């Protein structure tokens, strides 16, 4: 077998679910998370935040705070670079307000002191004089005539003339002639949908420990999904040479996209530079809610035409996303994913990126896609109901397949949507009887997945065991997956391999752990690095045997002659080769660096049964089945966990989670008591079906699995709730007051 071959069957280690390597550390408390770092002479930082949704900062008086015993330094915007432009200016403006506080919770100053309590007290003593400005937090209101302008001149060239200055980016895509398509339809349904912002809800708040000296050399420990990105941005915001700032990623207590950006890290570095002492900052949960990145809220209009036989003739969607006081709401992803599951002759999608007085949105698991699916799949469900068609048959009839021209442009390669629909149809859940008061919902979902810069090093030890060094923080079990893929290639047990997340000084640039890219891209790089090492191992055996390296094969962890003509030698195990590597040519290390571009897109189909209490409007999700294409499940238990996690977060988003703003523009529910994420007893057992349609772009067939799982739930649950309640729900969350109001309208 050539070393570049794609292997999609006959696995020995891949496809098994051994114990996770970080399990013991995590259950014993030995794992070090963001807040678990300490340094001699360390100070504690605290941040003063705006209590106003929108206010000009007239003055900041730090004298009382500075007079407090134990206070060592205070920083404001003046302590950062003043010559930034573009994206990094936006990051800085979010990290520390300039002239204007743009949302409730926006950082305006920070203090470093000898204890957490002193730092917090000092932050309260920082006197900021504000001139409050009119504010807006709703997406439709922010686009309307007369809405307060968040920042004039932010709109880029994509925005058509005549729109409110808060509309800062515009997207339009599709193909065909939608009006001609609608003319062919037997039934057209158009509806309006809204979703509220939700938070990623990771259990671990942001935390960091920064050390930065007057020599411009720094070290930063932080909880992040991507420490090279932290290095790049922090060095830019503070005017450092990139390589002089070494960043180490801690263990991570969840990220879901929300830890792909920086908030406190540049502040801790600035305080450290000013005090010449290490500075630690740990966000409170309230700060996480108010001032890190939730997802965007949306307002959407979707119009779909269908023939009586279920053929979709045309589809059009308008997606307006509010992403806080900065550009970047992922409206193009919403638009591009919304109709991706369907093979459409005529399709058009439009997106608006709208600024408002809310915190800057951050990525949240398939950013933008779940909301669009909610609107589109609700309309398809309604069309199926009105035309008396089976929702899975209709989706099969219109499903995207290999060769389909995607709604967003390219032509799909091998994809697994049809396989997920067939598996859903065949699943006992789909034909199980429902009790009175229950309803069933179906939805498909789509996510692109991603590759990105990736660098992996794989070093052999003298006893033949292996250490893999990767640069992508392990947010979903990737250390186990890397070890399994390397075990497969090297033919050695999983337990003989340790995978470590390196700091920024130890590898080349690695893109953030996002876009469901890690098992794909770091996995591909790990496999290629292992194959590089195997080639070197075979070379050592060939030299020992005095034969051509090409005449040596690697089988079950041993070098063997490739055939009778190569010579008659006993297999040479990895441990034997490694034992003598120092005198046979030196250390053996495999490398791979690339930006792989073959990430396979992924589809899922979810089935949900919901029960609605007609007297209180309370919804219980009573049965849930996730069917998703994984390409190849490297560690099936982790894959199931990703499927279940996406469904669980989707249940929260659909039913009870939301950002609640008061008339004053302040966030009302900045603690987990009132930000109603599901608790364990709210969830049914979430059944999973792993479909495997190999991705031709990965040597083991892997597709990313982490994000697609949150794309169908909003719609699937909305379809189930609407069926159970006998009335269509158009707005998330479908909390009890909203359902009760809908029931009252129905009656």
């Amino acid at each position, binding site marked *: 077998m050539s070393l570049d071959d794609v292997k999609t069957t006959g696995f020995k280690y891949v496809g098994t679910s051994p114990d996770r390597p970080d399990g013991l550390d995590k259950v014993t408390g030995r794992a070090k998370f963001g807040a678990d770092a300490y340094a001699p002479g360390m100070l504690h930082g605290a941040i003063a935040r705006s209590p106003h949704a929108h206010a000009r900062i007239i003055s900041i008086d730090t004298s009382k705070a500075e007079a407090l015993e134990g206070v060592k330094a205070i920083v404001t915007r003046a302590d950062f670079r003043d010559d930034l432009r573009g994206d990094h200016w936006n990051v800085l403006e979010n990290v520390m307000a300039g002239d204007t506080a743009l949302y409730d919770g926006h950082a305006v100053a920070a203090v470093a002191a000898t204890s957490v309590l002193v730092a917090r007290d000092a932050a309260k003593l920082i006197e900021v004089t504000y001139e409050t400005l009119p504010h807006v937090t709703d997406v439709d209101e922010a686009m309307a005539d007369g809405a307060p302008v968040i920042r004039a001149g932010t709109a880029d060239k994509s925005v058509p003339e005549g729109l409110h200055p808060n509309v800062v980016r515009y997207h339009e895509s599709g193909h065909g002639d939608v009006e001609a398509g609608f003319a062919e339809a037997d039934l057209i349904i158009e509806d309006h949908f809204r979703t509220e912002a939700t938070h990623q809800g990771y259990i671990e708040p942001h935390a960091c420990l920064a050390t930065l000296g007057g020599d411009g050399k720094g070290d930063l420990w932080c909880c992040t999904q991507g420490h090279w990105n932290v290095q790049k941005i922090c060095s830019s915001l503070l005017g450092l040479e990139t390589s002089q700032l070494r960043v180490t990623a801690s263990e991570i207590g969840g990220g879901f996209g929300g830890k792909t950006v920086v908030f406190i890290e540049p502040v801790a570095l600035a305080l450290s530079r000013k005090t010449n002492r290490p500075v630690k900052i740990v966000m409170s949960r309230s700060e996480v809610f108010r001032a890190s990145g939730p997802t965007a809220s949306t307002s959407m209009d979707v119009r779909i035409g269908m023939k009586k036989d279920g053929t979709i003739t045309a589809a059009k969607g308008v997606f307006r996303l509010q992403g806080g006081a900065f550009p970047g709401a992922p409206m193009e992803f919403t638009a591009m994913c919304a109709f991706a599951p369907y093979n459409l002759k005529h399709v058009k999608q439009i997106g608006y990126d709208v600024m408002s007085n809310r915190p800057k949105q951050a990525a949240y698991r398939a950013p933008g896609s779940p909301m669009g699916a909610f609107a589109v799949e609700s309309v398809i469900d309604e069309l199926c109901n009105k035309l008396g068609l089976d929702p899975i048959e209709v989706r099969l009839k219109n499903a995207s397949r290999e060769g389909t021209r995607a709604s967003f442009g390219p032509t799909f390669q091998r994809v697994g949507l049809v396989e997920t629909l067939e598996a859903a149809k065949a699943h006992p859940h789909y034909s199980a009887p429902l009790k009175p008061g229950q309803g069933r919902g179906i939805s498909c979902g789509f996510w692109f997945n991603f590759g990105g810069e990736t660098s992996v090093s794989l070093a052999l030890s003298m006893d033949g065991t292996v250490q893999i060094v990767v640069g992508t923080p392990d947010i979903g079990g990737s250390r186990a997956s890397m070890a399994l893929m390397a075990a497969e290639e090297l033919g050695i047990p999983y337990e003989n391999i340790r995978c470590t997340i390196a700091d920024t000084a130890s590898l080349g640039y690695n893109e953030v752990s996002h876009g469901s890219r890690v098992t794909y891209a770091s996995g591909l790089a790990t496999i290629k690095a292992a194959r590089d090492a195997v080639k070197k191992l075979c070379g050592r055996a060939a030299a020992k045997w005095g034969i051509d390296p090409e005449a040596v094969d690697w089988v079950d962890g041993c070098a063997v002659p490739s055939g009778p003509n190569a010579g008659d030698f006993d297999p040479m195990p990895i441990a034997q080769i490694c034992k003598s590597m120092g005198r046979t040519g030196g250390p053996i290390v495999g490398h791979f660096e690339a930006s792989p571009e073959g990430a396979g897109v992924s589809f899922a189909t979810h089935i949900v049964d919901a029960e609605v209490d007609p*007297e*209180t409007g309370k919804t219980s999700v009573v049965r849930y089945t996730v069917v998703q294409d994984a390409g190849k499940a490297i560690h099936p238990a982790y894959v199931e966990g990703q499927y279940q996690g996406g469904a669980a977060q989707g249940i929260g988003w659909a039913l009870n989670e939301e950002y609640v703003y008061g008339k004053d523009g302040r966030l009302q529910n900045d603690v987990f008591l*009132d930000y*109603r994420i*599901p608790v364990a007893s709210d969830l049914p057992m979430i059944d999973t079906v792993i479909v495997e349609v190999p991705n031709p772009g990965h040597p083991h067939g892997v597709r990313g699995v982490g994000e697609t799982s949150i794309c169908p739930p909003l719609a699937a649950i909305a379809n189930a709730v609407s069926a159970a309640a006998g009335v269509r729900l158009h707005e998330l969350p479908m*909390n*009890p*007051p909203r359902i009760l*109001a809908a029931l009252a309208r129905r009656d």
Partner: protein
Amino acid sequence: MHYHTPASFEDAIKIAAKATGITRFLAGGTDVLVQLRADMVTPDTLIDIKHIDGVHDITRTSDGGWTIGVAVTGAEMTEHPELAGDWPGLVEAMDLVGSTQIQGRATLTGNLCNGSPAADSVPAMVAAGASVSVRGPDGTREVAVEDIPTGPGRTSLAQDEVVTAVNIPARVAGGGDAYLRFIPRTEMDIAVVGCGINLVLDGDTITQARVVLGAVAPTVLLDQACGDAIIGTTLDAAALERLAKAASAACNPITDKRGTIEFRTKVAGVLAQRAAKIAYGRAQAGGAS
């Protein structure tokens, strides 16, 4: 901040009387410590009353009632079979507060003195006709539970007064109680609406009814009209209908992050009906034994 661990209620009220600024009594701490950490309040004086003799005791009184010490936890109540047998509604109400961990600390008295209109145990205590013993510089007085809260976060207790025990009346034959709350989740939440009901039957006919609503007004509501709607009935459909209407009519709620006026008003009636049915069933079972 000054932290005290008095050995007697007498010492506790002396400390409270002399204290300036903000004073908080500390039992389980499941409200006080959370508020402190969240920066909602920074007491100048914290008086920990857990170390006083008898505050951890659940005691049967000579008349068949119960005295519950101020540091008795929810878990201790739930695991007390006689108390739970007499007052299942009250014990279940307390058990709804927080998580397993919180149940190991949280107390009835703390739930009352926190002053939240959404406190789960308070409607159940009021329905039961419970009172608290309040000690001040002039001795001890007995105060009906419904007279303690005066508004969100406020009580009728003076600066130098402290609750020393909760007094639950004897369970009479043919009596039964229940408490239900509405939350959007299954646990770990605050009542959007709560309803505690205590009934006494003569045969199948309701002779006494105390219906108490939580989270629908600035304080819990003991509503006579709700009781009147079902007294003299066998809790038939018409009586239940009247009860729901009365409960909804009694509401004076607000719209906030936890629910709307319309929702609370409607669901108060729904919960009143559901709680009444449970209390009625328990009263019938109690009457038979």
